[in-house]
């Protein structure tokens, strides 16, 4: 096929991000400078974000058989880029400046994050198994490096290796699954597979096996039970801004492609597989929440809670009709906002880097009386994760329950209700820790450097956003609804 100017406009976010990768790499080769690298990365990401606007004018448009740029893709591209920007800002505060802060090379972190984000962008546009695989690997491989970025720290290195091995195993499953599916359907495009599956009425056992193996691979990336074992260790070991990236941009991209796959070839989500998905959802919700109960490490706790949250999202995936698409969009947006805020607070608490992250719960005792604003942010995030009204998380949970009720998934709705009741317990535990009064504590805000303040301002903005979306979610709903309808049409 011929590539016209339209195709380039549609692809602009990807192209600009790729160009940024090259520019940042050359800039590092030319002169090592933390601030310069950070600014270049930010500029590139912002440009990519802006380029989504002209791209929307020419979409929906298939660019090569691999990629489809449409409103759905645009929404998730924007989400990934915003999340990446936030992580980059946090990373800048985290790595620190001058002699204090991170002892190793700082600049390559940006390079790796950019590449990973590029993989995410490819993934949300993918409409072909080849595109899916390229995107997924581009997303995951730099993350190995990112997780182990503080390699002189044993935990970070261990987490990196663990993630690499398990992720590679996941990818192997995925490839095998694709091969089996190809053997059955004779096509690698989502629509081709969908048509082939639908034609037979009931997917053959070969196709089902293939789909199941793909599910294993994707389940690893989304850390769904029973493929969740790596999550807490990796979250704990990874440097805080990387954990934020892993929890947000990386998972959003994978979930988006799964949604697209199931929407284009609905036959993939029928029969036994649908039941399997339901079981995985219930298990993820219950086990994720139960294991989070006893954690005294905030990063591990958030890791388990993310397992549960993706379990909630599976409810909509299982339903996959009616409100489902919208619900997933809204939930992902609120989840990204909330996770960024929560990990952001951890990052700022650990900034600048000083050997280990401030992630033990006792370090947060009485934080409110020392750093009121940071605590306010974390409080809003905890409430949002728990899905309490006045926060964005409530709107997400409301959508999930609505979807479950609409599609009569009573077991899943029941699991959600029980899961949130358990969840409230540990979110509250974190929250009340922040406010515990201790007489010896000075009531002052610890001084921050300007780069930390930049992160702080961003966090406050995120907290305000979480609050505003909780009180007046209409703009978000309009946006997501728009993104959903285009894709179906």
């Amino acid at each position: 096929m011929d590539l016209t100017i339209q195709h380039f406009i549609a692809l602009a976010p990807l192209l600009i991000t790729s160009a940024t990768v090259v520019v940042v790499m050359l800039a590092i080769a030319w002169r090592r400078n933390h601030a310069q690298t950070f600014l270049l990365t930010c500029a590139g990401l912002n440009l990519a974000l802006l380029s989504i606007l002209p791209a929307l004018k020419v979409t929906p448009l298939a660019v090569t058989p691999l990629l489809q740029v449409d409103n759905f893709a645009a929404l998730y591209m924007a989400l990934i880029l915003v999340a990446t920007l936030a992580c980059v800002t946090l990373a800048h505060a985290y790595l620190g400046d001058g002699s204090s802060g991170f002892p190793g090379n700082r600049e390559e972190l940006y390079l790796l994050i950019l590449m990973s984000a590029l993989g995410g962008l490819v993934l949300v546009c993918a409409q072909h198994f080849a595109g899916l695989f390229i995107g997924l690997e581009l997303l995951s491989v730099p993350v190995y490096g990112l997780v182990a970025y503080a390699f002189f720290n044993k935990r970070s290195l261990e987490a990196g290796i663990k993630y690499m091995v398990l992720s590679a195993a996941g990818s192997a499953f995925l490839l095998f699954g694709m091969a089996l599916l190809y053997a059955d359907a004779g096509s690698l495009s989502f629509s081709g597979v969908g048509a082939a599956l639908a034609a037979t009425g009931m997917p053959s056992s070969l196709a089902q096996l293939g789909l199941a193996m793909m599910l294993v691979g994707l389940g690893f990336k989304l850390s769904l039970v029973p493929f969740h074992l790596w999550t807490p260790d990796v979250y704990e070991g990874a440097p805080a801004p990387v954990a934020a990236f892993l929890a947000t941009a990386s998972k959003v991209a994978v979930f988006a492609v799964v949604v697209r796959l199931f929407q284009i070839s609905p036959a993939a989500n029928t029969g036994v597989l649908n039941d399997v998905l339901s079981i995985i959802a219930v298990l993820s919700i219950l086990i994720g929440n139960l294991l989070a109960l006893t954690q005294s490490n905030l990063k591990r706790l958030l890791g388990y809670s993310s397992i549960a949250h993706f379990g909630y999202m599976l409810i909509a995936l299982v339903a996959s009709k009616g409100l489902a698409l919208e619900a997933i969009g809204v939930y992902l947006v609120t989840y990204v906002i909330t996770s960024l805020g929560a990990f952001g607070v951890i990052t700022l608490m650990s900034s600048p880097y000083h050997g280990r992250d401030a992630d033990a719960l006792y370090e947060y005792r009485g934080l409110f009386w020392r750093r009121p604003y940071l605590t306010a942010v974390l409080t809003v995030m905890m409430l949002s994760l728990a899905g309490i009204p006045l926060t964005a998380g409530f709107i997400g949970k409301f959508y999930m329950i609505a979807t479950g009720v609409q599609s009569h998934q009573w077991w899943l709705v029941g699991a959600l209700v029980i899961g949130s009741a358990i969840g409230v317990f540990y979110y509250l535990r974190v929250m009340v820790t922040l406010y515990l009064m201790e007489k010896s504590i000075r009531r002052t805000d610890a001084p921050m450097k300007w780069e930390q303040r930049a992160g702080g301002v961003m966090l406050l903005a995120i907290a305000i956003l979480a609050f505003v979306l909780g009180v007046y979610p209409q703009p978000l709903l309009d946006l997501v609804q728009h993104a959903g309808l285009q894709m179906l049409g």
Partner: protein
Amino acid sequence: MILPWLILIPFIGGLLCWLAERSSATLPRWIALLTMSLELALGLWLWAHGDFTLAPTAGAEPAWAVEFKLSWIQRFGISVHLALDGLSLLMILLTGLLGILSVLCSWKEIQAHVGFFHLNLMWILGGVVGVFLALDLFMFFFFWEMMLVPMYFLIALWGHSSADGKKTRIYAATKFFIFTQASGLIMLVAILGLVLVNYNSTGVITFDYSTLLKTKLSPHVEYLLMLGFFIAFAVKLPVVPFHSWLPDAHAQAPTAGSVDLAGILLKTAAYGLLRFALPLFPNASAEFAPIAMTLGLIGIFYGAFLAFAQTDIKRLIAFSSVSHMGFVLIGIYSGNAQALQGVVIQMLAHGLSAAALFILSGQLYERLHTRDLREMGGLWSKIAYLPAISLFFAAASLGLPGTGNFVGEFLILLGSFTIAPWVTAIATSGLVFGSVYSLIMIHRAYFGPAKSDAVYAGMDNRELIMVLGLAALLVLLGVYPQPFLDTSAATMNGVHHWLGTALTQLASAR
């Protein structure tokens, strides 16, 4: 425009309290006091000017004394729909009054982080007012859940851990939160179920009360949805199998928290039953009525027995609330107009008397530094006024004629007798146990041999004004309840029509 202000005033006042903490420690108290006075004044103004013969009734478009509507989330047809009728007005007056009292009673008790404390206190009250005014089911749920967070903070941060250290205040606060939050989610599922049933039959997606009233439900679905609502309200009321959070929360909460919990938060559940569960699902409620009444009966006796066995004075009062709410539950599900009117009076009277008892036990705690009845005794001559006033409120709590509690219980029993004579007869004997635990409380605390020779400070003006004011109101409610009855008459007639019709249909079908 007055209705949104009723909700906004506490929220804004709370924020001001927080900001004012920087300049002085007493400023937040004055701001909070002013806020709640304004709230009460607005309520009284509405009472003087509103037409409370307007109330929703079966088979007609609901009419309201004051109404406010503003589109909120168009996607789901959710609007900021607030409305006021006699019942909600009385509840708001109670909220305003107890709000003032909870500020006053923490004047000396709370010394740490005064601003943040009052922020939480004001936000609870704002959420409660929201619950009493919301007519959009989404909004109702929104406020219902929202008020839990500040209440949680109030108990967890300013509460008292029990003496033996077994039950910490954080344990109590978390238990309270999880019970109410989980039951609230079940209600949310039921709300969404109702909305989707309505959507499937009419094609309009809306959370509006007046529209959803007209939803046609099959009996099976109606029963399930009613249960969803009932569970949420039963936890908050509390009805016996779901009550275990209440004594813990009360015992561990600061005085202001207990006052709000017993005085207002429990009433939101009764209000929810009257406003939502019965009118939305009249047939299922009629079918469910015998079970609900039995639960009410169990509550009366269980609460009374456990109250008798308590050694912690606040737990005792907490269990007495369980017992009193049993009467309310019986009254509500009898569907009789008289009994329903009695429920309103009982709610008001219990709000006042329980609040007073909690305030008094708070004052006792400030002097003795214990709430354990075993360490009290012989206090009658040692604290000026306090024992005598306690005796008055204990008598009110057991339903002495001349107090509002008597009027409430009498009307409930009188009205219910025509519907369910056996239940009523058994419930009446529960009053005896009410006197037993009330009097034993007085006896253990104030009579018998003294445990120490210390003489305690008498009551100061602030403390006296609070409880004497409550006593006066309680007597007024007991001697001349007519203005209150007139205000709520139209609303209760509406509820009576909904449930009464369904009850007679059910009876004739059998």
